[in-house]
């Protein structure tokens, strides 16, 4: 028997979400409510834009609600209600402190988060369970965080915990830092990774030699097809003109030179420094399966280590690179 606390009653959260959305739409507090609805494939969801109270039944909740819906907020004019997980809420905090979104225009419906599924990991697990080239035809998740999958002649169960998105295993804020409503119960959030451990893998990677590190990044970035889906998925990539699209000067060439792709990845990491919260949306969007977290998390770690700055934690914060302290690190300067 599982203890009550370990249960993650996803359907209860969905019911809460629908109730809250209905209230907000009926009173006219929001013009549109952004949440998740069932996708066309099992265990996939897609963003839902609900404008009528009668449509709130479309809204769902579960470990497949992976998109960071904060990405839509800078683009909306009217009053918006939005469902945000812990990491998503931190990206919204950054959008607010960067004056891209007005706090009073958004009704935040926070969800204490149990983590989201990494589709690639799950696919690998199911392929192994099915064997012989068979594929799963149906899949669903149970209330207590187990995925059930069926295909021709096989059945498989996979605990969500074993196929979590890597961002979730190092998550420091599964409960949103800011919200107007909370759907579900804080006790249903996944366990918090202590801040001192959140970057252990980044530090371990730094422990390898420079040659090995460079080779690793070369191999990863070699697969980049410059589709910029990672940029599109990121709520913090709202610039009307991205540096990769600039013509004069052209920062990132179009000749599929590895060097150009590296500049894109380095530039992206720098532009997310002090802003990225490791929501993982970029990594999940990448069709090439590139490990996009390593560079951005190095910047996250540096922001904390060099400047004591935790991204997206505080609505009163001044953005990391828009301010300074006299005693900032200086020892690298001749």
């Amino acid at each position, binding site marked *: 028997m599982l203890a009550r606390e370990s249960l993650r009653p996803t359907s209860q959260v969905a019911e809460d979400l629908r109730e809250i959305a209905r209230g907000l739409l009926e009173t006219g507090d929001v013009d549109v409510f952004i949440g998740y609805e069932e996708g066309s494939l099992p265990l996939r969801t897609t963003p839902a834009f609900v404008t009528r109270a009668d449509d709130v039944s479309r809204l769902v909740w579960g470990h497949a609600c992976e998109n960071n819906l904060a990405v839509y907020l800078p683009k909306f004019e009217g009053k918006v209600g939005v469902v945000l997980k812990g990491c998503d809420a931190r990206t919204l905090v950054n959008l607010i402190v960067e004056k891209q979104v007005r706090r009073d225009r958004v009704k935040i419906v926070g969800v204490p988060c149990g983590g989201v599924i990494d589709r690639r990991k799950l696919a690998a697990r199911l392929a192994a369970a099915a064997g012989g080239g068979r594929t799963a035809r149906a899949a669903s998740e149970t209330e207590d965080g187990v995925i059930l999958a069926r295909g021709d002649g096989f059945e498989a169960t996979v605990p969500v915990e074993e196929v979590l998105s890597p961002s979730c295993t190092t998550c420091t804020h599964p409960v949103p830092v800011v919200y107007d409503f909370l759907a579900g119960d804080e006790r249903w959030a996944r366990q918090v990774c202590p801040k001192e451990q959140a970057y252990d893998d980044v530090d371990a990677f730094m422990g390898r030699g*420079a040659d090995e590190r460079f080779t690793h990044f070369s191999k990863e970035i070699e697969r980049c097809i410059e589709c910029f889906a990672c940029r599109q998925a990121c709520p913090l990539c709202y610039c009307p003109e991205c540096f990769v699209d600039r013509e004069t000067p052209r920062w990132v060439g179009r000749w599929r030179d590895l060097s150009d792709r590296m500049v894109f990845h380095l530039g992206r990491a*720098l532009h997310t*420094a002090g802003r990225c919260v490791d929501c993982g949306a970029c990594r999940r969007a990448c069709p090439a399966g590139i490990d996009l977290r390593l560079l951005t998390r*190095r910047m996250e770690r540096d922001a904390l280590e060099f400047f004591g700055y935790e991204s997206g934690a505080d609505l009163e914060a001044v953005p990391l690179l828009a301010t300074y302290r006299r005693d900032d690190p200086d020892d*690298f300067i*001749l």
Partner: protein
Amino acid sequence: MVAFLCNWCSYAGADLAGTSRIQYPPNVRIVRVPCSGRVDPLLILKCLQQGADGVLVSGCHPGDCHYMAGNYLARRKFALLADLLDFFGIEKGRVQFSWVSAAEGEKFADVVKRVTESVRTLGRPTRLVKERQR
């Protein structure tokens, strides 16, 4: 090597080194910029792509910025850039930073010497260099 020097301090420091006839390695091409805060990390990456052996960015000492805080803001950016490049596996020393005032002709010459020496020990760059520049 490419050296981005701020107009108000380091460029004047380089000028002083020249007018004082202080000898320093002739390996730098100087780019005058209004402030070290103007130096977008992308400019530095571009230099490395085009095959520069090294890049030096130099500005006013903390507290001396003509625009009050340009160098303080630059310092945060460069701390992140320096660590990111190191993490990425670009040799430490390819990109360096210094504070040189308008009165420090000697220091400018010394910085260029030190940077030139360390870049020389690293040899020709390959990482991040565009294929047709190799």
